[in-house]
């Protein structure tokens, strides 16, 4: 009957629409990265975070193992507090790992690159990364370059 046909067509239409949304979620966007399947958090304090944004990747040797969960300013230490969410399976990072803020390409987005140290103990949840390297700020570079030039 007519009602049956409508129901069928509308049902198919809605399914198609939801399917499209699904496709957009899975194939097109990074929603899969959202599932904070178990992560543990580690904090680092930086003098200058440059253009680092939350959700920026956290990598070790270029392989992404987590993301920046939160960025705040600590008025007691006068430094930026960056919270890193690292996937639980990567629990081998030594206590003396260094966190540096790098730029992808020349003018790309910034991310946190971890350089493992040699300590036998590993970073656990709520630990602090002791060694940090701030982002390179273009103005400082230019300033340094110009002073160097001037001193010649």
């Amino acid at each position, binding site marked *: 009957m007519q*009602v049956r046909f*409508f*129901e069928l*067509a*509308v049902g*198919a*239409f*809605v399914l*198609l*629409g*939801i*399917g*499209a*949304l699904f*496709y*957009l*979620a899975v*194939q*097109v*966007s*990074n*929603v*899969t990265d*959202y599932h904070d399947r178990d992560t543990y958090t580690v904090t680092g304090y930086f003098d200058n975070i440059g253009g680092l944004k939350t*959700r920026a990747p956290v990598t070790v040797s270029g392989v992404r193992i987590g993301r920046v969960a939160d960025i705040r300013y600590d008025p007691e230490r006068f430094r930026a507090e960056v919270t890193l969410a690292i996937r639980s399976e990567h629990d081998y990072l030594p206590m003396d790992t260094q966190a540096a803020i790098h730029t992808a390409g020349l003018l790309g987005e910034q991310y946190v690159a971890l350089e493992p140290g040699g300590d036998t103990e590993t970073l656990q949840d709520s630990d602090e990364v002791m060694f940090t390297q701030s982002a390179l700020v273009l103005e400082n570079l230019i300033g340094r370059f110009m002073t160097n030039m001037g001193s010649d």
Partner: protein
Amino acid sequence: MTDAIASVGRATINALVVFGRAFVFLMRVLASLDIVLRRFGLTLAEVYSVGVRSLLIIIVSGLFVGMVLAYQGYITLVNFGAAEALGGVVALSLVRELGPVVTALLFAGRAGSALTAELGLMKTTEQLSAMEMMAVNPYRRTFAPRFVAGFLSMPLLAAIFSAVGVMGGYLVGVGLLGVDSGAYFSQMQSVTDWNEDVLSGVIKSVVFGFVVTWIAVFQGFNAQPTSEGISRATTQTVVVASLAVLGLDFILTGLMFGAG
């Protein structure tokens, strides 16, 4: 000189009157929404005529837009040696802007004008009056189901448009122009954020659906009950709805992507 000012003033007052009437109409429709749940069959039939029937034009347009995006994107990116970023360019353009906006414009043209014409005709042939005299509230039986149907169909259509567009972009970018297929999708995924990009596109299409359907249904309701009146109302639906979509897009984009 004063005539010109007077006519501008008059036009403004008229516009305000119409807007007020449209607003009252909207309130009445929203008040009648409970009927949607109780007599779902009415809404279902409307979703079919408004949503399902628009599928063809949306899918075809989405495909073409995606393909053109890939073409144009490639031509520009290749100059910077950044052809691999094509996937991201196509996806972001579609999901953030072209999906919601082009779908809304097409919807206004196809489904919106059909709604206006249908309701205008019902008004002209006194069907709405007859319903009132039979103690049936036309807001519940006629306007509310159509309103809900449009409002629900739009986001779905926009998602389908974007998804098909991405596939079209793949066909041209990877199939025709030689972009690496892995790079197409991986670049896309790293650049397209679910929250910021996809969801804000969905929010846009929901807002557009609301506004376009409101305009279409109101214009039909408000049309002069003559054949000339109906044709004028139908044209106005397309024009006003299109302008509203573009204007809202500007505002929403500023809100969503500017501050964030």
